[in-house]
Structures are given as C-alpha cells and as structure tokens.
C-alpha cells in the first residue's frame, strides 16, 4: 500500500497538463467497458423517445411485418387527430384530475409526515425502540402492491374480511358491507395506503440527514437559551431544507406519473371505483392491454412524459430561485 502511494505521488509529479486527459487507448477501453450499457440506453430509453411519433399516426399493426412497415406503410398520418379524440373523450378530464389531485396530496403529505416523524423519532430516549419501530415501518416499502392488495383484501373482503367480522361480532355497522364498492371510503383510503407504504422510506432519508447535523450546534443554541422547540425550529428544520427540496423536486417531476399498483392493483380494479382510480397510468394500461386502442393510449402516454419533463424543469427553476444551493441540476 505504501508503495502504491509512493508511485501515485511520483505520477502526480511527473504529470503534465497534456497527459491529464488520459491516453486515447484509455478512453477507448473505458468506452468499450460501458458499451453494453450504452446500447441498452439507446434501445430502451432513446428509441422510445422517437417511438412517440406513433401518437401522430393512425397506427395499425401489420401482423408478421416489422414495426417500420406497420408505421409507415400500414398506418396513416393523423396529425393531432389522436389528441383531439383523446381530449374529447369522457375519460380525459377525470384521469387528469385524479392524477393531479391525488399526487398533490401525496406530495404534500409525503413531505410533512416523514419529516415530522423523523424529527420525533430522533428525540426518543430509547434508541433501541427507535430502531425497532423504524425497521417495522420500513416493511411496507419492501412489499409489492400485489402483496399489499392481498393484505387489504384480508381486512376488507366482503365475506371473510377482518373488518366485517368485527362488525358482525360487536354488532356495529353493516357486516355485509361491500368495501370494494365504497367510493367514499376508498377516496381517503388511497391516501392512507400511499402514506402507509411510503412513510418508512421518507423517514429513513430524513433521519439520515438529521443524524448528520453537528451536535455542537444544539449545544451552542442551548447556551443561548434556546428551548427544545426553538432548537428544532431554528436548527433541525433549516438543516433539512436542502434534502427536502431535492425530494420535493423529484416528487413534482413525477406528478403526472401515478402509482399504477396503488390505483389498479390495490383496489382490485373494482368497477364502481373507476371514478376515483382512473389515473393516466391506469388508463394507458387499459387502452394498451385490456381493450387495445393504441391511438388513445399513445397520446395519453406522450402527454404524461412531456408534462412530467416540463414540471421537473420548472420545479427546479423555482427551487433554485428560492435557494440557489438547493436545485437538483
């Protein structure tokens, strides 16, 4: 090891400015090293970016022929016709509304709840209790929506669910209540499920930042006579601002991207709930796989990507205006 360090020093001394970019052979080797990844990006990320042209075609698949044949020979240019048709459909307004309203609620609560919990949990006397609780609260993050869908079913199944069982045994409420038809219940339960799954994750991120705050700042504040609440208000919260703003921008960038698992899988795609669960992703899935109509799903997916891109850039600009250090890029 000492030898390595010596050599490294020797290199630094012998290096001239011209050599510091590395030899061209080096560059070639590094390029070849990541060539497979580059190809993956070209195929799975950049090709679909050009694939969005299908939104402007009246797309017909030619069975047995290639994609380009289907696109340019078998399909006709439709301009913004697909978009017009989508905008006029009765599904358009509810799906945009559901996506934006739910995501706004999720984003606000997704900052408030985990930040509060992280501050509180770091105040607990017993570090062991804090660790155990944090571990238990992290569990939902690691479960898939399919599994959580079964959990929900175990509680709210009409015939055997725990909630109806309890209602039956204590004689309160309707023991045959069909929860999967109850819009009023799911309206709020969707918010609960989202927070339930995400709470542990958010808390862990903010806890890591809180534990990184220099303890001497609190001691200095103490000498100035700051109460516990003032310490939190004037040290902890300001110190959390950069990480909160990064998490916030990332969340805003995804405001047009709804959680398909929550809205489709956890609700068991229940028909009566469609009014509140039909978000952009659910619609795109239905119009792509369930009842294929690519002329409707393609423009919806394109609108989602474009709006997502615009919001993330805007959010970054706004956050940078407020706090120049806090931007994501």
């Amino acid at each position, binding site marked *: 090891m000492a030898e390595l360090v010596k050599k490294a020093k020797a290199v630094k001394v012998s290096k001239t400015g011209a050599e510091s970019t590395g030899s061209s052979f080096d560059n070639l080797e590094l390029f070849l090293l990541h060539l497979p990844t580059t190809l993956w990006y070209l195929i799975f990320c950049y*090709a679909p970016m050009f694939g969005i042209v299908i939104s402007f075609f009246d797309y017909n698949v030619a069975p047995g022929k290639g994609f380009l044949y289907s696109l340019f020979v078998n399909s006709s240019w439709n301009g913004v016709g697909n978009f017009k048709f989508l905008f006029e459909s009765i599904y358009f307004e509810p799906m945009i509304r559901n996506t934006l309203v739910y995501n706004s609620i999720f984003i606000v609560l997704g900052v408030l709840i985990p930040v509060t*919990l992280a501050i509180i949990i770091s105040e*607990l006397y017993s570090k062991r209790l804090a660790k155990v609780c944090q571990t238990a609260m992290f*569990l939902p993050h690691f*479960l898939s929506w*399919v599994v959580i869908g079964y959990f929900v079913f175990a509680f709210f199944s009409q015939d055997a669910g725990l909630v109806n069982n309890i209602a039956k045994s204590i004689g309160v409420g309707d023991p045959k209540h069909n929860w999967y038809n109850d819009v009023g219940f799911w309206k709020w339960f969707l918010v609960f499920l989202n927070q339930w799954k995400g709470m*542990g*994750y958010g808390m862990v991120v903010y806890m890591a930042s809180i534990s990184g705050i220099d303890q001497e700042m609190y001691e200095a504040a103490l000498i100035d006579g700051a109460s516990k609440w003032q310490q939190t208000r004037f040290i902890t919260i300001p110190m959390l601002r950069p990480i909160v703003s990064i998490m916030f921008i990332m969340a805003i960038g995804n405001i047009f991207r709804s959680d398909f698992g929550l809205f489709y899988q956890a609700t068991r795609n229940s028909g009566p709930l469609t009014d509140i669960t039909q978000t952009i992703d659910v619609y795109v*899935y239905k119009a792509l796989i369930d009842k294929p109509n690519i002329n409707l799903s393609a423009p919806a997916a394109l609108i989602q990507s474009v709006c997502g891109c615009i919001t993330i850039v805007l959010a970054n600009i706004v956050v940078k205006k407020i706090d120049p250090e806090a931007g994501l*890029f």
Partner: protein
Amino acid sequence: MAKQPKAKTATLKYLRVHPVTNVCFSAIFIFLALLCFMPALLVLIVSLSSESSVLSKGYSYFPAEWSLASYKYLLQQSGYIGRAFMNSIGITVIGTLIGLIMCSTMGYSISRSNYRLKGFFTWFIFIPMLFSGGLVASYVINTQILGLKNTYWSLILPMCCSSFYVIIMRTFFQTTVPDAIIESAKIDGARQVRIFLQIVLPISLPSIATIGLFYTFAYWNDWMLAKYYLNTNAQEKFPLQYVLITLENNIQFLTRNSQFLGTDAAADLPSETVRMAMVMVAVIPIACSYPFFQKYFISGLTIGAVKG
C-alpha cells in the same frame, strides 16, 4: 468532550424532550410500527389456519384451528404455480447480475475524471431521468421490434439499468476509488478492464452489494412487466407475483359468474389459505432479510439523494 459528568447530564436535560413528551412520542411510534406490521401478521396467521377455520370464522388473528396444510399443498404443486417460485428466483438472480454489470461499468467510466467522453455520457444518463418516451412507445418497441412479448427477457431487460443507480454508482466510485490507485496500477501495466475487475470492484464491494440489493428487491417484487408482456399463452413463465394476480382475477371471475358456471369451477383453484400461503412465500424472503440489509439500503438512499 472534556465536560464534567454532572454538567453533561444537566445539558442533556435541555437537549432532550420532556419525559412526558417522550412517553407520548414512544406511544405514537409503537402504534405506527404495529400499523405497518399487523397486516402482514394477519396474512401469516390466515395462511397457518385450517381451511375450515377460515370458512367458519373468516380471516382472524385468532383462528379456531392451526394447520400447515396450505404449505404442504404448495410443496406438492407442479404446473405453473409450482414453477412460479423458481421463475422468480431465476429472474431475480439473472436480472441482478446483468443490472450490476450495466450500472457498475457505466458508473465507473463516468466517474473517471480523465475520461474524455465523461461529460457527454453523464448527460446521456441524465436525460432519460427527465424525459422518457412513455409506456406506449416502450411497449410498441419492445414487442414489435425486439419481439420480447411472452419471453423471459421481457421480465429482465426493460428494468435492468436505471439512471438513478448509475449515478449512485458514479458517486460511490468517485468517493471510494482514488485516482492515485488507478494511476499506479496503470504504471504497473494494467489495462482499464483489468483495473476495473481486479482493483475497483473488490474495493467497492459494499457499494456493489447495496445496488445489488436494490435490484434483488425490485426484481423479486416486480409484476408490472409480467402484466404488460406476458399473456396466458406463457403461463409456464409467470413469476410468483404475477401468479398471485392471476389467481385474484380468476377468483373474481368465478364469483361473478358462479351462477352460470356452477360451484365446481372454483374447486380447481387454490383455496383461500393456500393463496395467503403464496403471499407469504413472496413476503417471507423479504421480511426476513431486509432488517439485516437496511443499513446498506439507507446508505444507498442517502447517496442517491445527493445531487447529481
């Protein structure tokens, strides 16, 4: 920290919350921890109760009778239900390996300050984080150009690389692998590939393990790709999570149409306790392993949140 012990406890009193507040806070967290843990416990208990107990009492934390029958039934399953477990393991292992190779090579290359294309490829990685072609364009390209429909690859390739992981890797390599080591290896005549395999990978094993965990959990839990790219013709390729979905749909279909199909149709499907046992098969590997791995997860998350 050369303070008097007495002074220390005195300051501690002001650095801490009030004892009564502490009790309230503890109660809140015990409640939240139970809220997150109890649903999993309910499903576990249902899977361990006897079928007749579930039929008479419904799902309950206190079953009338315990039984391992559902797990025994699962062990004897051949056909697509039995295969699903192996499929999930295979997809998880292969996906994690491919994903790690993809992310670490790219992350390493763009972490080297003397790589001439560093700037270009950093943007190349970053742009897909801002803009993507969307679900439909990806679906059309994957099925019609790449022919991935109903293949195992459709469950692996679309998610085997992610800009987020590449950027985490890059940050790892920048901070844990000093340029000096690489320069000295070069003087000894090592090529970049060898440096990467024999020097960089061994010293960044903890970081590789972290990303490996992210991948393992993501592949194990994935059902979206199967939902998009597999249909009933490829039943032998279903991963565990997707089998759970199909069972759920079949049950719904049968209950909706029971008056036309008769009650016998439901007899072919796994019983309620067996379905809950399958859910536990999907949950238990995760629930038993994440408490030990969570410190790696947390280190990955906090690095990922550092701006790129």
